């Protein structure tokens, strides 16, 4: 298995606050990698560092063969075009309808695209993300938070990326919606060979779809592996995380 993403010795911080100190992580192609950690351990900052929104202080970030930490603007943009990002609250463009939100990356990539093509592909992606057809003409302010998340996923998938970064995609969804979302990610992974970087707090999602889970604590990745492998490490935070009542409910342990 080749690596879609390699992070080595990453150091990030704001002011005199260090968020990550010597963090290393590898994500294989075609896997769903869950990223967990307590609040404030820098899960979202790690995601932002990988996609180049937060400049790292030190370390190596290799995304799809591009050194994101030292590559030029062009090379980084080319690598980002092969990835999709879904932000926590969707981060949809509020002046565009949902369909236009999904069409925007397509038209940016292929400026002369036939409107029938972009429209059809965008509507398919919205439908895949579980949105009803009549939602396509609504604006982000006119829909619920759960629908915004789905639309955010549809936009992240607009260009059929190889790697998708999802920042807490199921947080705030009802259990039915969250399960449907998990099933959708699995479907897409199977059909498209998607590699998914999945920041989450949702233990059910971890159990359902993640091939491996990376645990962030003490400013590093303290363990990566399947959930049984993680539990075998005996790390106290991991034990509390998966051994608590919610963890037991999700993993039956």
């Amino acid at each position, binding site marked *: 298995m080749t690596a879609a993403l390699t992070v080595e010795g990453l150091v990030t911080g704001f002011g005199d606050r260090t968020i990550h100190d010597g963090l290393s992580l590898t994500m294989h192609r075609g896997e769903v990698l869950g990223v967990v950690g307590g609040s404030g351990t820098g899960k979202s900052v790690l995601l932002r560092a990988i996609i180049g929104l937060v400049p790292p202080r030190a370390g190596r970030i290799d995304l799809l063969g591009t050194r994101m930490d030292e590559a030029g603007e062009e090379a980084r943009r080319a690598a980002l075009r092969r990835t999709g990002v879904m932000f926590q609250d969707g981060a949809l463009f*509020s*002046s565009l309808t949902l369909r236009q939100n999904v069409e925007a990356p*397509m038209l940016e*990539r*292929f400026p*002369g*695209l*036939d409107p*029938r*093509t972009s429209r*059809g*592909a965008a*509507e*398919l*992606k*919205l*439908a*895949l993300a579980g949105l*009803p*057809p*009549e939602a*396509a*003409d*609504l*604006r*982000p*302010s006119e829909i619920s938070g759960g629908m915004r998340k789905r639309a955010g996923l549809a936009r992240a*998938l607009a*260009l*059929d990326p190889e790697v998708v970064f999802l920042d807490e995609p199921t947080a705030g969804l009802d259990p039915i919606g969250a399960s449907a979302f998990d099933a959708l990610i699995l*479907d897409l992974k*199977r*059909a*498209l060979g998607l590699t998914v970087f999945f920041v989450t707090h949702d233990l059910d999602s971890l159990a359902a779809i993640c091939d491996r889970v990376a645990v962030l604590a003490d400013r590093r990745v303290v363990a990566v592996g399947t959930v049984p492998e993680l539990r075998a490490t005996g790390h106290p935070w991991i034990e509390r995380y998966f051994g608590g009542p919610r963890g037991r409910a999700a993993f039956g342990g």
Partner: protein
Amino acid sequence: MPAPTAEPVGPHLPEGALTLGTVDALRDALGPGTGPLDLSGVARVDMAGAWFLAASGRPLRGARPEVAALIDLAAAAMPAPAAPAARPSWRLPSPRGLVAGLAFFGRVLVLAAALPRHPRRLRLTSTVHHLRETGLTAIPIVTLMSFLIGVVLAFQGAAQLRQFGAQVFVVDLIAISVLRELGVLLTAIIVAGRSGAAFTAAIGSMKMREEVDALRTLGLDPVAVLALPRILALVIALPLLTVAADVAGLLGGAAMSWIELGVSPAMFVARMEAAIGASHYLVGLAKAPAFALIVGLTGCWFGLQVGSDAESLGRMTSRAVVVAIFLVIVADAAFSILFAVLGV
């Protein structure tokens, strides 16, 4: 991904990948028809390609398993074509907005009228903060602008008055126009663009992030917490700014009169004392609180009208400034009539 372009091969699809970038070419190559398509040459499809094939309505033959899987996924998810929702492109301004705006005005007045009886309800820290933001920090721009207006008036007035040898009347021209009209009017316009817009943007972004709703659930009145301190601060600040603008305007006029017409500062002051009563100054100053009320009310009102999208924030901010300036000028005209009737 290098995308081979589609060649017209009838029912046989071209070799290679069928992706978002090549769908258009393939559609043109295939043209209309319902015959079966042979997909044996298609190595890869993306979602757009799968959508195109699934939506073509043609029987598909010989697809590789991974291609077929994606087409099945697309076909299963394919939305039924929805009728585009009718969206009114424009709306008439409704009188309801005007009535609600007046109700807001009344609410602010009621809250303000209750302050003398319940002085503890005054949010002093907030008011002082806005006093500094709208008043103190506006002094440089307001005085500079007013100074320049004084200079321009003196310059233009001098050119005309010299023809009649009536240079000394430039003092009357400057003093009356600055004290009575321009000082307060231009200050109000600057403050509308500066503080009125800031009120709308600040309250509007709080509205967007549900902070206004959070205030309500805490039992706090957003009008009392957000609008009243701002409006109160502006009602205090604008008259003070007007005084500064008056002084700066007269200074600019006096300086230019001296340079251009040789009217010395002492002459300027003497002429002002002789010819211009205090009434012009008071008339100008009397308008300041009214203008402040207009600017503050429109700024806060449009801030509370912001919806949950970024676009409405921008729209409301620009509307607040335009409406505030418009109403200030209308009020100025009304004041002119009032003072003419009163004979001051």
